[in-house]
């Protein structure tokens, strides 16, 4: 099991020295709807509030400087920013507060801008007053949350079967980390014909030789479970009936696509795959006169797996160059020629390759294909001496990885990312990244690129200071009756029974969800910043009669 991240000694709730309240008019967006001076008067009346400042555009430099000065001058140890909803601003305030010597845990935000946008004027003012009153009460009861630095392991687990796993490992090794590859397949596929930059043969062995112990590959193995947090994950994996344990800093899931046979291969007599056709091209074999490439499929797998017209474009161009007299036809619904590939597509057309668009799979009728053209709606007969079909690309093994690593699956059966746009390779678990085709079917340069990005993100996380903690749960040892309710309830396996026979929370694992606190029959568990007394006071304040 992982080393437990122990919380520091109980952080006592100290009486606030003083609260600073800063009310922003947000260029009129707030002050037009609300009586800011009334809010100011209300805040100033609270005994805990030391300073109230009304400014315009709090998030910009002049106002920010003014707030900082007032924070440093007064006897203030906590801060309430009353203003905007922009996700951007909080970070700047927290940073400013930190530089003025205020703990980030003691900074609270009250979002009046959304209130102003969503409510008529008459409702907005009493609501704003209620929100501010609650915020002041809440701020007075905040406490510094436990945070501790942990030493991260310099080993990374890569789960993968192909080029993206190799690329990720190579990048991690370059960054000075150690890599364990757990490969669910029988051997690591060094290159696949769909990746734009294939590895040269034998690259894997060379790589292993160069770094020695730092690189291990375990084929036909599977990860069973994982526990822990960034920098300190304990993994259990099995190989040939034997189970192994290892401590790693982070995990990269680098599953690649595997080709599975397109049923059209057996439907069309003498049909071959694009891969086989490429071999023919490389061997400079004599090509037949009429070649037809079909980049279509007819079951639901064809919908999911993007048929690689990229291959068809390049192979047809190549073949036409080798045998200019041959008649080459590509049948596909769309020609996916992104970026530079468009230039190749144009060149192929200029060389005389025919592209026919069809929504349905063509029929084989004595020595030729009959295809329905979607432009004209006509049936076109294409003579075919050789038919080339693209195989399906599918990614297997996401389900078992999802189970072992506790990563949710999307409706398509892929591993889910937190935010595909701003964190394209990250999962909701810090230190666990996805690349290759683990999160979506990725062809072309995609797998290599995402592998490098995942390796880069993880390496920079492991190299910087790793801090765990925050708003976590805490057990009152006096009250704990060791009933194991919390141990059974927690989805993150954070509580366990310690040496004294009482429950303890691993603050590295705790996500602050509060399930244990709600379930504990002895009321022995509280969550930092969301303690019962805090919540009760907040509710009571919010429900107080409005002062007239």
């Amino acid at each position, binding site marked *: 099991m992982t080393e437990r991240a122990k919380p520091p000694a109980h952080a006592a709730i100290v009486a606030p020295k003083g609260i600073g309240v800063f009310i922003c008019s947000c260029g009129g967006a707030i002050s037009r709807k609300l009586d800011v001076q009334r809010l100011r008067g209300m805040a100033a009346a609270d005994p805990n509030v030391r300073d109230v400042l009304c400014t315009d555009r709090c998030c910009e430099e002049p106002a920010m400087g003014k707030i900082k000065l007032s924070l440093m001058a007064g006897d203030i140890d906590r801060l309430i920013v009353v203003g905007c909803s922009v*996700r951007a601003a909080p970070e700047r305030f927290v940073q400013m507060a930190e530089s003025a010597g205020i703990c980030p845990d003691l900074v609270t935000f009250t979002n009046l801008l959304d209130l102003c946008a969503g409510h008529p004027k008459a409702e907005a003012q009493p609501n704003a007053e209620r929100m501010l009153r609650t915020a002041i009460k809440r701020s007075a009861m905040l406490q510094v949350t436990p945070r501790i630095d942990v030493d991260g392991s310099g080993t990374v687990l890569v789960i993968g079967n192909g080029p993206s796993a190799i690329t990720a490992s190579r990048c991690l090794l370059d960054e000075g980390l150690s890599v364990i590859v757990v490969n669910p397949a029988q051997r690591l596929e060094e290159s696949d014909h769909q990746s734009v930059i294939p590895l040269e043969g034998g690259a894997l062995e060379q790589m292993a030789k160069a770094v020695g112990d730092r690189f291990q590959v375990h084929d036909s193995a599977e990860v069973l479970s994982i526990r822990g947090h960034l920098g300190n994950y304990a993994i259990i994996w099995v190989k040939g009936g034997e189970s192994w344990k290892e401590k790693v800093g982070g995990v990269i899931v680098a599953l690649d696509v595997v080709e599975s046979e397109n049923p059209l291969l057996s439907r069309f007599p003498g049909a071959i795959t694009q891969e086989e056709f490429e071999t023919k091209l490389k061997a400079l074999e004599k090509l037949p006169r009429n070649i037809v490439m079909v980049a279509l499929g007819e079951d639901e797998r064809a919908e999911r797996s993007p048929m690689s017209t990229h291959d068809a474009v390049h192979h047809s161009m190549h073949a036409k160059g080798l045998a200019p007299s041959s008649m080459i036809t590509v049948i596909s619904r769309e020609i996916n020629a992104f970026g530079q590939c468009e230039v190749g597509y144009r060149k192929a057309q200029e060389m005389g390759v025919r592209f026919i668009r069809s929504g349905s799979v063509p029929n084989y009728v004595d020595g030729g294909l009959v295809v329905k053209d979607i432009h004209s709606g006509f049936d076109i007969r294409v003579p075919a001496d050789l038919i080339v079909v693209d195989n399906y690309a599918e990614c297997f093994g996401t389900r078992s990885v999802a189970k072992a690593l506790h990563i949710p699956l999307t409706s398509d059966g892929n591993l889910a990312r937190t935010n595909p*746009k701003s964190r394209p390779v990250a999962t909701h678990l810090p230190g666990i990244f996805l690349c290759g085709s683990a999160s979506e079917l990725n062809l072309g340069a995609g797998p290599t690129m995402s592998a490098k990005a995942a390796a880069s993100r993880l390496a920079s996380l492991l190299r910087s200071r790793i801090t765990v903690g925050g708003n976590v749960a805490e057990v009152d040892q006096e009250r704990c009756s060791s009933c194991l309710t919390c141990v059974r309830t927690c989805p993150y396996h954070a509580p366990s029974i310690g040496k004294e026979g009482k429950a303890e929370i691993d603050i590295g694992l705790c996500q602050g969800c509060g399930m244990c606190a709600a379930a504990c029959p002895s009321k022995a568990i509280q969550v930092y910043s969301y303690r019962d007394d805090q919540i009760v006071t907040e509710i009571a304040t919010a429900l107080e009669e409005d002062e007239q």
Partner: protein
Amino acid sequence: MRGVLIIGSGTAGTSAAISLADRGVPCTIVERSPRLGGLASGLACKGRVQCVNCDVCMSTERVPRLFRSGLIRIITSSEVSTIERDRGMYRVGVVPCRSIDPMSCNDCGDCSVVCPPKAIEVLPGKKGSWRVMTSSCPFPIEECASCVDVCSQDAIRTGQAACELMVDAIIVAVGNEAFDAKMDHRLGYGLVNGVITGLDAESEVNQNGSLDRICGGRPPKSVAFIQCVGSRGRPGSEQCSKVCCKYSMKLAQSLRAWDPNLEITFFMMDWRRYAAEDSIVAWGLSDPHLTLLRSRPAEIVSGSDGRPSVRYALATDDTVAEKGFDLVILSIGLMPSASGREIAGSLGVRQSPQGYFMSEGNPGRMTDAKGLFFCGSCAGPKDIEECVMDGSIIAAKASTYLESLK
């Protein structure tokens, strides 16, 4: 360590800077425009009902992170003038470009009238509209100061003072420019009322929440999307811009969320999408009020009712059809940026015939021994996701390079 210079603060540049700062490498961002965030910062969130992964939260989420780290220095409204190799490092001259201070600008429009290259455009802002200097102003301040002279508010800034930086490595992330739809006269952009570009539509939605203002205050009843404007042929880029199919379909989906009966017509060549957009394709094919026409329109003219009218031909018959729409949206593509060419010139590196930075054998590196890197869409059209990944990949490479110097 003197750190890294990043030219451009678009998605890739921002991502590279954040990743470098995460690794403890100091960096400086030089951005030509007064705003950070690049092309993506002008786009609108298209997730009306639920997130459609349209990328736009990117600029609101990433740009502020630049300020959080103490290691990132930001120089806006400035451009790189000279790059010289000096004892294993780079001596970089940064000169201010002109910009307009939005706080002082009262939108009187005097500067737009006097500007010889017409390099001032109007941007709608929260306080009312304001004017911005586009990057097309070619004159140094000594040669042309007409805007400065005419401004009654003293709002024209000549940027921060010129400065010189010493850096160990340079990351070029100048990105792409949107195709100027005026270059394709047939499509009537700027001539016919109701013809706008995808970028216009996005910024209009961003600022005003709907497209009603463009259609004379009424919500549009019929909208046409013209695909591949400025991509896949002249005028414009010969390449496929990769992003237009995606953004226009997502925009259409977002318009549909407003009006379930809106007639949407796509004029397209190929429907190009990544695997992840399958659900959107399925939506496009199943929507009863959405028509996909495989045709490249010949021209767009002003119809007798004042609405834009699209002339096109279909493969199925020989006649020329003409159809009026309330709104025509041109899905403009990406073009290599002009500043990329200048920088390639001053660094002495080759570009592809299309004007993109080329990697010679080693992806992302022009000449890796010298600490010159490039990332993002200046190496070919990329979507936001790819730019984010590319930025962090190059950051890793650059920091490995800096370590090798020690």
